[in-house]
């Protein structure tokens, strides 16, 4: 188990290096930061001078190497065009993103898993049809549109909730959390349903019933644990999306998260903070995927046995 874990972490290193380089290289292709700073009024010679002082004329590999060693050795991810420390900027915004991601995924689990189980148990009944079509509705509704509808209703008309920002209370969290959960609830409900449908006629459930286990325990104890793997996978993937910041939701609700900040950086050719954000987010995504993989082992002893073998 531990060996498998270490192996997984080690394979992470080349992946993250490749991702970092790719991001660094792509960012440097997107534009000329010197021109962004200088504006339109400078001469070509002045621009060249600026590029020289900013180190932009050196080969990409050299610049990447310097950036990487600074990042790894000193935790220095560079500075934005405005002179702000990239790491500090990230650390400022990430807690907001994380708060939104975690609460939203918890809300998703709390709604989607019971819904999925009910839909599977009442397979092909009206309850199932209702839940499944609601899920499709949730999946196909554009988040920005729903976000705006919510703002119109709860902020403008009823004046119950703040229309944007993170004021630290649950009130400001409610709408963005709900909005980013809707799509995921739909996805996870469908995944739970189909995974449970596979289990619900299994022989071992009949064995459990035959020894007097109550129907509730048969479903939540026996069937769900066997149906869990695809559900965990979906939730893990969705969580890693959320950690990256849901730009649309952050924009609609002026949520001070990482996603909208990264997009703003890219648009203004401010590629140091953009690179920093993307690399840090990819690292976290990779870690989440490993955690999901390790969770498999706790859910299914057969997978644990496979991990043990190497």
């Amino acid at each position, binding site marked *: 188990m531990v060996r498998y874990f270490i192996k997984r972490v080690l394979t992470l290193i080349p992946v993250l290096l490749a991702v970092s380089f790719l991001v660094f290289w792509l960012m440097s292709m997107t534009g000329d930061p010197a021109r962004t700073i200088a504006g339109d009024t400078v001469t070509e010679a002045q621009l060249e001078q600026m590029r020289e002082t900013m180190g932009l004329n050196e080969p990409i590999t050299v610049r990447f190497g310097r950036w990487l060693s600074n990042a790894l050795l000193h935790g220095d991810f560079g500075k934005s065009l405005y002179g702000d420390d990239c790491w500090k900027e990230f650390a400022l915004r990430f807690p907001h993103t994380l708060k939104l991601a975690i609460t939203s995924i918890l809300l998703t689990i709390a709604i989607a898993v019971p819904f999925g189980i009910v839909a599977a148990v009442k397979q092909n009944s009206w309850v199932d049809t209702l839940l499944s079509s609601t899920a499709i509705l949730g999946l196909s509704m554009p988040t920005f549109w729903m976000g705006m509808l919510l703002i119109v209703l709860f902020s403008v008309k009823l004046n119950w909730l703040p229309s944007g920002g993170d004021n630290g209370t649950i009130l400001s969290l409610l709408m963005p959390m709900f909005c980013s959960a809707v799509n995921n609830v739909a996805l996870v409900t469908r995944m739970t349903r189909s995974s449970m449908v596979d289990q619900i006629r299994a*022989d071992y459930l009949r*064995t*459990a*019933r035959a020894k*007097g*286990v109550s129907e509730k325990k048969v479903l939540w104890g026996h069937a769900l644990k*066997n149906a869990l793997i695809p559900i965990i996978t979906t939730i893990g993937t969705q969580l890693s999306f959320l950690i990256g910041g849901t730009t649309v939701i952050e924009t609609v609700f002026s949520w001070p998260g990482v996603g909208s900040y990264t997009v703003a950086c890219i648009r203004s050719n401010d590629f140091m903070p953009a690179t920093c954000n993307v690399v840090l987010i990819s690292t976290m995504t990779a870690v989440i995927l490993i955690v999901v993989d390790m969770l498999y082992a706790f859910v299914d*002893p057969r997978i644990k*046995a496979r991990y043990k073998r190497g």
Partner: protein
Amino acid sequence: MEKKTVLQIKDLHVRFDTDDSRVYAVNGVNLDLREQETIGLVGETGAGKTTTVLSVLRLLASNPGAITEGEILVNGKNVLKMSDSELEAMRGNEVAMVFQDPMTSLNPVMTVGDQIAEAIEIHEKVSKAQAFKLAKKMLETVGIPGYRAGDYPHQFSGGMKQRVVIAIAIACHPKILLADEPTTALDVTIQAQVLDLMKKMAEEFKTAMILITHDLGIVAETCERVAVMYAGRIVEIGTLEDVFNRTAHPYTEGLFNSLPDLSDRSHEPKPIKGLVPDPTDSYSDRCAFANRCPYAVEQCWQKHPEEIILSDTHMVMCDRYQEKGFHIERGTEHE
């Protein structure tokens, strides 16, 4: 001494409705199981053996399976009228079941110890730790070392898994054990071991047993009485002696004739002619076996045969026995 009846199935009818047809799985089964006896329930695939037995625990998938008529009395209580909680209290405690395929009948993500302990925890007032201890003991009873209680089903062989299934079934010392072809999915060399184990357990815990099988050899070894099912009905029931030596029903005779005789190489097994019965037909207006029966006469096609009592222990569902002096080739003349 007359033994107490522990399980009574009275006129049980089960049918399954599918989108385009209605399947008549069980069409009026009557069966009494007495204390500590073992009844062999034999018949071909689709005869309704499993459906009958599952009905006793009400384990048929409620949709589309439906028990339309009849009574099932466990120690005098009608299973079909039990509430959910009464049902849960009965399952595994008074009546337990061993299933056909040990490969799929254990939960793959639960240790075998937990799976046995779960039954004990539900029915006996013990703590979790005590239940697990008892589960270990139960494992040892079925011949698996107790330290393996923490292992998962995939770490056991098929025969061992079936031992675990048996351990689950007998964990609360049920008065009635239903065994649905417990050895069919197992290797031949393991079959005898598992059967011996079941027999031993039944004796040790004074459990009555219904053993479904289509192996007449197993019946001869383990059962005191035999019930032969055909097209959802019991067509012949009697003691081992009655059915094996004084065979009365033409279908039972057909079953015996279709067995190969190992002591006589020139003997050709004679399969029963014709097709298996149509499950969408309830055969309520004629004998279900008439089209395959060498003894069938006009009247067999005109009404459903009645249960004819040949002796205190022997019943046959064949109208030809109303004629004085009728007997089949294998059988003897009955008065």
